[in-house]
Structure formats: structure tokens, C-alpha cells
């Protein structure tokens, strides 16, 4: 049963990702990306990571994609008009992509994976609660990275304001 659910959402994700890179209209690409995000959220649920699944839908599908759609509407770039690809670009890109997937497949299927040894067994998670366990980890072992993220977000906010501010004439 799990396997069927996996194949269903994996199929949706791959198909939508293909659509994203193949569709000409940027809005259609953005909608395909939304489909990828939702399929991945479903796979996170399958991997018993409900918090990450919800965060995925809220941050990626909710915030990031809306930002993309806003910028597409703002700039209205009907780009990729004819002048598009450089000579040989498509063939080279597909060739490199194919080489990369062959390499990765070799690694994935020959790698000797370690066996489970952590404490986060399904029973432990059920007893502890997924979000509680994650929060406890975030505020103990990962406290410094967590605080640095807040700094990163502050820098991003200031950077965006500076970048999009209209410069006065003569400045």
C-alpha cells in the first residue's frame, strides 16, 4: 500500500517537474512547481514527518511561490521568445543532465547504506510527539544555527528593501 502511494506521488512530482522546465509560459511553470511542492509534502507525510510537510506547504507553496507569481505579474516577461536557446544549448543541457542522473543512479544503487541506529524510532516519536521532539532539538543542539537563521532573515529583509528602493535622480 505504502509503495503505491509512493509511486503515485513520485510520478506526479517527476511529471510536474518536467512540466516546469518544459512549459513556455512562466505562470504555467509556477503552477507545475506548486504541484511538485504538494507531491513532496505528501511524501513527507509518508516519511512520518508531518511538521515538515506542513512547513513545506506553508513556506514553499504559500510564500515562495506566491512571490514568484507576483514577480511574474509585475514584470510580465513573455520571454523565451524565439531568440531563446543558444546553438547546441538544449542538446548539451540534456546530455549533461543524463550524465548526472547516470552518475547519481550508480552511487544510489551501489552505496552501502548504514542501518538504523538513532533514537527516533516510530514508537519514540509517537510517545514524544513529532513537533515537540523537533522543537526540543532545535532549541538545544541546533540553537546557534537557529539564531543565525534569524540574522539571515534580517539581512534578507534589509537587502530586499535596499535592492528594490527607487534611487533618487542624480544618486
Amino acid at each position, binding site marked *: 500500500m505504502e509503495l503505491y502511494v509512493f509511486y503515485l506521488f513520485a510520478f506526479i512530482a517527476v511529471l510536474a517537474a518536467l512540466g516546469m522546465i518544459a512549459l513556455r509560459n512562466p505562470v504555467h511553470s509556477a503552477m507545475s512547481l506548486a504541484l511538485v511542492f504538494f507531491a513532496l509534502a505528501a511524501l513527507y507525510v509518508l516519511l512520518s514527518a508531518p511538521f515538515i510537510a506542513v512547513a513545506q506547504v506553508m513556506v514553499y507553496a504559500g510564500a515562495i511561490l506566491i512571490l514568484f507569481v507576483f514577480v511574474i505579474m509585475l514584470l510580465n516577461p513573455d520571454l523565451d521568445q524565439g531568440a531563446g536557446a543558444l546553438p547546441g544549448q538544449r542538446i548539451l543541457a540534456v546530455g549533461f543532465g543524463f550524465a548526472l542522473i547516470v552518475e547519481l543512479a550508480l552511487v544510489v544503487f551501489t552505496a552501502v547504506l548504514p542501518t538504523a541506529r538513532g*533514537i527516533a524510532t516510530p514508537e519514540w516519536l509517537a510517545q514524544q510527539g513529532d513537533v515537540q521532539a523537533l522543537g526540543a532539538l532545535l532549541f538545544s543542539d541546533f540553537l546557534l544555527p537557529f539564531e543565525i537563521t534569524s540574522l539571515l532573515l534580517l539581512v534578507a529583509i534589509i537587502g530586499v528593501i535596499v535592492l528594490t528602493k527607487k534611487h533618487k535622480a542624480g544618486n
Partner: protein
Amino acid sequence: MLTVTHFIFLSAILFCLGAVGVLIRRNPLIMFMSIELMLNAVNLAFVAFGRFLQDLNGQVFVFLILTVAAAEVAVGLAIIVAIFRARESVDVDQVNSLKG
């Protein structure tokens, strides 16, 4: 039986599609979306390994990557908007002022 290899291979496929998207398209917005797709593929690998090694650290990493991706998109789209304002076009080939 669902194994970690299933998820890691799906992650590899999505990562490659993202890489091809960056190489094949000329529209900076879609190149940017492809980068997001690659980040998502990495997230999937993190969660899958975390689940099968029974370790929550993978999910914490995904949480941090999510934050970095949000900041990256905000700054990147601001740069694209700024380039559009300056040049009235967002063709990646016209952004060559730094070329010697």
C-alpha cells in the same frame, strides 16, 4: 517494501531535472524555480535518510534549508526586479556589464 533507495533515487531524479532546467532555460525566473526544485530534492533526501536512520537531525536540517530558501528567493527576485527596472528586460544574456 518501501526502502530509503526509493526516496533517494526520486530525489536524484528531481535534482537532475532542476539542473537541466537551469541549463536549458533562458528565463531567469524559471532558472530560479529550477534552483528551488534542486533544494527540494535535497530536502527529500534529508528527510528520507532521517526517517530510515531514525534520526531527527535530518528534519532540523530541512527546517534550516527552508529558511535559507525563503531568504534566497526574496533577495534573488529583488535582484531580478532591479535588473528589469534598469534594462527593461530580464534576458540573462543582457546582464553582461561585468564582462571584460
